[in-house]
């Protein structure tokens, strides 16, 4: 693929959709977490690609897209720490991390 905005957008769409597929089809809670990481990476790649290729409006800096990606990475770190804590707590309570077994809250 050539060095253009479209190539990067296609790669990030692939990351996003493989991420949604992973989230939808995994039964292992940690597998679901990996899918979420793929989705966040796709979004971050999109931001950086836009900040490289698009014409910024007069008032904004070229680098705003990269700052957004930094925030995405920080929030992903917080998210994965809390999510793994929840998974470990569930594992010590229920001896499994199969998301199909967690149905206490089902209406």
């Amino acid at each position, binding site marked *: 693929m050539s060095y253009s905005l479209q190539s990067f957008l296609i790669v990030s769409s692939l990351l996003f959709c493989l991420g949604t597929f992973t989230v939808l089809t995994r039964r292992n809670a940690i597998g679901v977490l990996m899918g979420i990481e793929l989705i966040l990476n796709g979004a971050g790649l999109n931001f950086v690609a836009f900040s490289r290729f698009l014409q910024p409006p007069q008032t904004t800096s070229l680098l705003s897209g990269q700052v957004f990606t930094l925030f995405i990475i920080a929030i992903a770190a917080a998210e994965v720490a809390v999510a793994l*804590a929840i998974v470990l707590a569930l594992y010590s309570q229920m001896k499994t991390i199969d998301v199909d077994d967690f149905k206490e809250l089902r209406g």
Partner: protein
Amino acid sequence: MKEIVLNVFILLTVVPCLWVALSSSIVHAAFSLLVTLFGVAGLYVLLGADFIGVVQVIVYIGGILVLIIFGVMMTQRGKLLPLSVQLPGRLFGGLLSGIILVTLILAASRSLWREAASLADPEPTSAAIGDLLLGKYLVAFEVASVLLLVALVGAVLIVRRSVRGE
């Protein structure tokens, strides 16, 4: 030359990503995720985002992936549970994400992006990002740091409570 490097990094990103989604072993999926994250870091560098590339390697590969692998190791005692749902569920998931993929690719290739007339040569970005973080985005920066602190304390609290069995 640039295109060859670009294609190498795209392959390095997408092929292990397929393995993350389809592998039947959670350990293989975790290590494929490592290669995918490294490929994305390479793409960041190719886009002229040197600082983000390094942050990606440090935070994702050095932090998040190590956490995930720890999680895999601590929850794999006893019988191995089947990693994915049954076939109808997989077909449904594949259909849904396939529809999203086609829509996104159509949108990306058909839209009229307001692209910059000429690409400037990439410059070091750390200083400018620092200016933005402590200037225009100061509030978001401080909120993110409080969020990280809360997540840290919350994660410890959740695990401690379940260890003591309260």
